[in-house]
């Protein structure tokens, strides 16, 4: 007997669903139509009906579909497989219990336009989550409507715009002058993009050699009188706590502006310090980071906004409110009568499925567990920072919070750069860290382990990084050619961008095009 070895493992070479399609295959069955059929022409005239018979849409059996998606899924790295140390992304464990909660039929099957009296449980979930987020941030006004971090940013800076317009008057010269949103050069790109969408002009604040916001530059920029506000991430994108935060807020407030905090890095602060106590006016939280709702390969996210009482009238509508009946018992409702609101930022009430998961996270941890998670996350980052301190260049000396920053400075002599180190990490079984961000640090490697990893695996990561550093000196080609263990090698992104192919087309048409 002999075995013929396939040249490529079938599970490693799964085609596109369109290429797998076979006419006549079916992966579904519906009940037979149980009403008298109307002649199609009486339903809809021919000119309103499709003519293409959905040509090209796949025809597959159920096992075909399951195999297809299972096979391609195995080409993904994921949190459940191991450490996923993307800085500023907070890739923590996504609890199965939270998934179960989100699928309870009373929630998953609830229509958003159901009458409020028949949706009390869902409204209670949202109201309770709002209360907890207000406590965690120290900011009492909360809207769960924004669908993602950037969406929350947009909402927050639009609230600043609306507040200033209400305070200064829309037509006054003051309103015309206050157009400048200050953003540190280390900020995430969504900050300037969101500020621009909200009608602000962006001015960049420099960072100090310590990796902190340059207070002198901040004062200088504020002196112009045009400052509407500041967008600040804290801990900042270098993983360092802005220890002058109170002074920063004071300077902005004295200049007549408001402070927006990007809450991407809240996993460093929950239970330890509250943005509201620092002087921050409005913040967005990433439920998909700090509160463990799954990243899902790039969404769905959820980006609630929390703000001071002063800013609360400007939050998006509808608001979820509670009214206490006499003699106990509460009812929950939706309130759209907020004339100063920035308006709606999304249909319905936000990514409710994520609200459920985040509330489950908060209740599972309890008050002590929330702080414990923060401590464990910062401790893990410190462990890595300590373990790699002698091997990789650290651009800033300040002690890291929940993530630590290194560069490729010591490795570049042999031509090994951050990208190569990242790709080589894949060969050691780890997902790479965030690379080339923040932009102000050349060759940046931003590492965030989160609390969801044990010390043995942290040590393995440290060992892998040290080994790569050794290879960078002794065997640079191995690093430069990495990864070596994946299904495919490094892809030619330049060619992909020059002649973009963004969809599948049938072979004959593709050839003719």
């Amino acid at each position: 007997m002999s075995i013929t070895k396939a040249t490529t493992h079938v599970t490693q070479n799964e085609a596109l669903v369109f290429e797998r399609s076979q006419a006549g295959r079916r992966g579904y069955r519906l009940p037979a139509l149980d009403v008298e059929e109307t002649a199609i022409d009486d339903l809809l005239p021919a000119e309103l009906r499709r003519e293409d018979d959905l040509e090209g849409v796949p025809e597959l059996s159920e096992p075909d579909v399951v195999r297809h998606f299972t096979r391609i899924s195995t080409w993904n790295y994921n949190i459940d497989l191991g450490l996923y140390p993307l800085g500023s992304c907070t890739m923590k464990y996504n609890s199965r219990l939270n998934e179960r909660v989100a699928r309870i039929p009373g929630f998953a099957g609830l229509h958003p336009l159901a009458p409020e009296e028949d949706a009390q449980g869902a409204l209670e979930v949202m109201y309770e989550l709002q209360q907890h987020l207000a406590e965690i941030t120290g900011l009492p006004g909360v809207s769960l409507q924004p669908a993602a971090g950037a969406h929350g940013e947009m909402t927050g800076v639009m609230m600043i715009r609306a507040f200033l317009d209400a305070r200064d008057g829309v037509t006054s010269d003051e309103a015309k002058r206050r157009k400048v949103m200050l953003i540190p050069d280390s900020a995430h790109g969504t900050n300037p993009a969101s500020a621009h969408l909200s009608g602000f002009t962006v001015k960049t604040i420099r960072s100090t050699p310590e990796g902190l916001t340059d207070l002198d530059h901040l004062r200088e920029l504020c002196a112009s009188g045009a400052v509407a506000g500041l967008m600040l991430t804290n801990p900042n994108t270098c993983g360092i706590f802005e220890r002058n935060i109170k002074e920063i807020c004071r300077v902005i407030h004295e200049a007549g502006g408001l402070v927006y905090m990007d809450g991407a890095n809240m996993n460093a602060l929950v239970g330890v310090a509250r943005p509201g106590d620092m002087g921050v006016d409005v913040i967005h939280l990433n439920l998909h980071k700090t509160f463990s709702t799954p990243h899902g390969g790039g969404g769905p996210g959820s980006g609630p906004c929390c703000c001071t009482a002063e800013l609360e009238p400007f939050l998006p509508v509808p608001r979820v409110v509670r009214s206490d009946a006499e003699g106990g018992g509460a009812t929950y409702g939706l309130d759209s009568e907020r004339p100063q609101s920035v308006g709606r930022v999304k249909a319905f009430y936000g990514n409710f499925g994520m609200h459920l998961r985040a509330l489950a996270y908060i209740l599972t941890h309890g008050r002590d567990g929330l702080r414990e998670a923060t401590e464990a996350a910062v401790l893990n980052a410190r462990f890595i920072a300590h373990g790699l301190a002698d091997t990789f260049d650290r651009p800033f000396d300040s002690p890291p919070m929940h993530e630590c920053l290194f560069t490729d400075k010591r490795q570049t002599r042999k031509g090994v750069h951050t990208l190569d180190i990242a790709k080589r990490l894949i060969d050691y079984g780890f997902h790479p860290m965030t690379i080339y961000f923040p932009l102000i640090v050349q060759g940046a490697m931003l590492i965030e382990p989160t609390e969801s990893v044990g010390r043995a695996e942290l040590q393995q990561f440290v060992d892998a990084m040290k080994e790569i550093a050794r290879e960078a000196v002794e065997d640079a080609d191995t690093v430069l050619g990495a990864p070596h263990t994946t299904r495919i090698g490094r892809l030619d992104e330049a060619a992909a961008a020059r002649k973009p192919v963004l969809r599948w087309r049938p072979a004959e048409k593709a050839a003719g095009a």
Partner: protein
Amino acid sequence: MANVPEGLYYSKDHEWLRVEGETGTVGITDHAQGSLGDVVYVELPKAGETFAAHDTFGSVESVKAVSELFLPAGGEVTEVNESLNDEPEKVNNDPYGEGWMLRVRLSNRGEVDSLLSAAEYEDYIGSLE
């Protein structure tokens, strides 16, 4: 070391200008293409548009960066290198030849005097290292 041919004018924004009579030809320098990396897209204006010196006339994109393009000397665009639409890599492979971007009818020959010579530009990029 980046190639800096003699006989061209250079700007500190890393564009070059070749002057032939009233016509100026514009592109980006070898140094610029080297720091950008693989060019994947060049956005250029249409013939007939007029720009002043130092105006933004387009942008050049690599996979992960965008740079604005500044006109070294003002004038009306007479011709655009349409072949860059399909083959933007020409900017990398032959920045002073097939990778040219615009031809301009110069509105003021005097503006050329404020540009750098090859030697001056070479010193300038040396100072950036």
